[in-house]
């Protein structure tokens, strides 16, 4: 087979020559690979189109204001009430709680792994963090049900299925996300910065926490944003420990149950039909938009970290 020099575009491209080439393996393979690369674009397109086509009319029917700020979720009433504010607030509380528990531990662990860790501990710790990321969310949820729920019931009161329990569990679940991304952000900081600080008389701790960590700020922020994304999107584990009452809660009621956007969908989609199902899909759309915003924020922070 006559092959042209590689790594170069066709010199004088013309349609006739393209046709005369007939079936060319190189060309066919390139087309195949390029088509495959379009799969991701197609998938995102399909997801957007189908979610919005099914969800937006429902939001229109209910009224965007009634839907987003309604405090009553009564899908079985006549006429039904579809207000998802309790779920939005529930997602917010539980995510905030998860950040409260997970972020400090995660960042200290990341600092440890990047700057304090002896080699023999690191070789155990790194796979351990990976395993923490790999544990399925149902297993976390089950662990929450049999361990954390009784623990919160016995030590803090309430029936145990609460915002606090879900926050604790989610705090554990976002640990690996925060650790992995923060650690690589800290490692990416040039060693000269640390060395300079130490040369000026800073101790190891001081140099790490006041020079290296601030320099890695955008990467660490990106890890927190990704952790928020994980926490907002987590479904099964939250649904298993959060109590799931679709009721407006105040921040001081953290020992009572709450329902998140995700658990609203997972609980009711199985038996919903008609307007109810459309309202659930609309809940999914709201969740999807939240996630897209969080992703955009993450992308921005990551880009800033790379520069």
């Amino acid at each position: 087979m006559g092959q042209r020099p590689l790594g170069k575009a066709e010199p004088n491209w013309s349609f006739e020559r393209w046709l005369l080439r007939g079936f060319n393996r190189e060309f066919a393979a390139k087309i195949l690979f390029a088509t495959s690369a379009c799969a991701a674009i197609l998938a995102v397109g399909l997801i957007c189109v189908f979610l919005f086509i099914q969800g937006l009319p429902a939001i229109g029917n209910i009224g965007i204001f009634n839907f987003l700020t309604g405090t009553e979720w009564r899908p079985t009433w006549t006429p039904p009430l579809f207000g998802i504010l309790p779920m939005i607030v529930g997602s917010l509380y539980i995510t905030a709680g998860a950040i409260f528990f997970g972020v400090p531990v995660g960042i200290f662990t990341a600092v440890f792994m990047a700057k304090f860790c002896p080699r023999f501990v690191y070789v155990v710790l790194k796979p351990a963090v990976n395993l923490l990321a790999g544990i399925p969310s149902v297993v976390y949820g089950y662990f929450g049900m049999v361990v954390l729920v009784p623990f919160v019931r016995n030590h803090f009161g309430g029936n145990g299925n609460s915002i606090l329990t879900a926050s604790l569990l989610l705090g554990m679940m976002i640990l690996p996300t925060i650790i992995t991304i923060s650690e690589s952000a800290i490692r990416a900081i040039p060693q000269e910065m640390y060395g300079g600080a130490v040369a000026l008389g800073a101790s190891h701790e001081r140099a790490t926490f006041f020079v290296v960590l601030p320099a890695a700020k955008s990467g660490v922020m990106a890890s927190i944003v990704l952790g928020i994304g994980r926490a907002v999107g987590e479904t099964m584990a939250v649904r298993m420990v959060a109590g799931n009452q679709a009721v407006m809660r105040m921040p001081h009621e953290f020992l009572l149950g709450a329902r998140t956007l995700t658990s609203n969908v997972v609980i009711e989609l199985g038996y919903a039909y008609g307007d109810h199902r459309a309202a659930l899909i609309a809940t999914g759309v709201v969740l999807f938009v939240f996630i897209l915003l969080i992703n955009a924020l993450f992308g921005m922070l990551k880009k800033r970290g790379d520069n």
Partner: protein
Amino acid sequence: MENLSLGLEAVEEIASLKISNRKIMGRKPMDFFLFAFTWLGIGITAAVLLFVVGYVLINGLPHIRPSLFAVQFTTENQSLFPALMGTLMILGLALVLAVPLGIFSAIFLVEYATRGSRFVKIVRLTTETLAGIPSIVYGLFGFIFFGVFLGWGLSLMSGAFTVSIMILPLIMRTTEESLKSVPDTYREGSFGLGAGRLRTVMRIVLPAATPGILAGIILTIGRIIGETAAIIFTLGNVARMPNHLFDTGRTLSAHMYALANEGTHPGEAHATAAVLLLVVILINALSSWIAKFVKS
């Protein structure tokens, strides 16, 4: 709580090693607090892992009985066998769909496309978007699109297609990274000997990148096995083995979810959680073992 204290003890032991040779008490208070918090952070992380894994395994392993693997599911035995078969079927189908697609896309991005071109940027952006979408949204989409719009209902096909979209970004990313780690001298050598681009990719670059790609695929398998929210609305959650491509069934994690929610068979629930966790631990170990080949 035994596991917790065990974990803490181990951590303290390691901590004391370090503290003793750094004379921490002689330091400034600020340094001491930072140092202590760092160790506290790692202690909590280690304790969480040991506690979760330890609790599930210690409570679950004694409940594993032969009846748990009976071919037929009954309300008495709560067999996980049909769910295990369902998991394997979903796994096989989703990998067949997503692995070639993911690898081809990665090949295009790394070997063919001009770096930084608009097309590459769009593909990157959509891949990152896909990676960030929560599984319940995938479940919702699969339910609307494959289940209702295409009329596949709750079936293996719906489940496998949904899951394959979910794992596509993971496969693409790991493959891209493995391809990039192949030195350019390999490619130059191949071109220099007169091989075409396709031959270079297939005969030289791909074989060199195989361990990395394999490690990524195995990691993906762990992700599929753990998936629940996307599965229960596309494959369904019926305790039997799917008989054909458009039949419903359940996976191991969906089975776990059902058991935990019913709460009537605590022993079987413990055992199923332990089996699920063991599978995930094995897969993780296998993946990092293979990834080690890449480095050496």
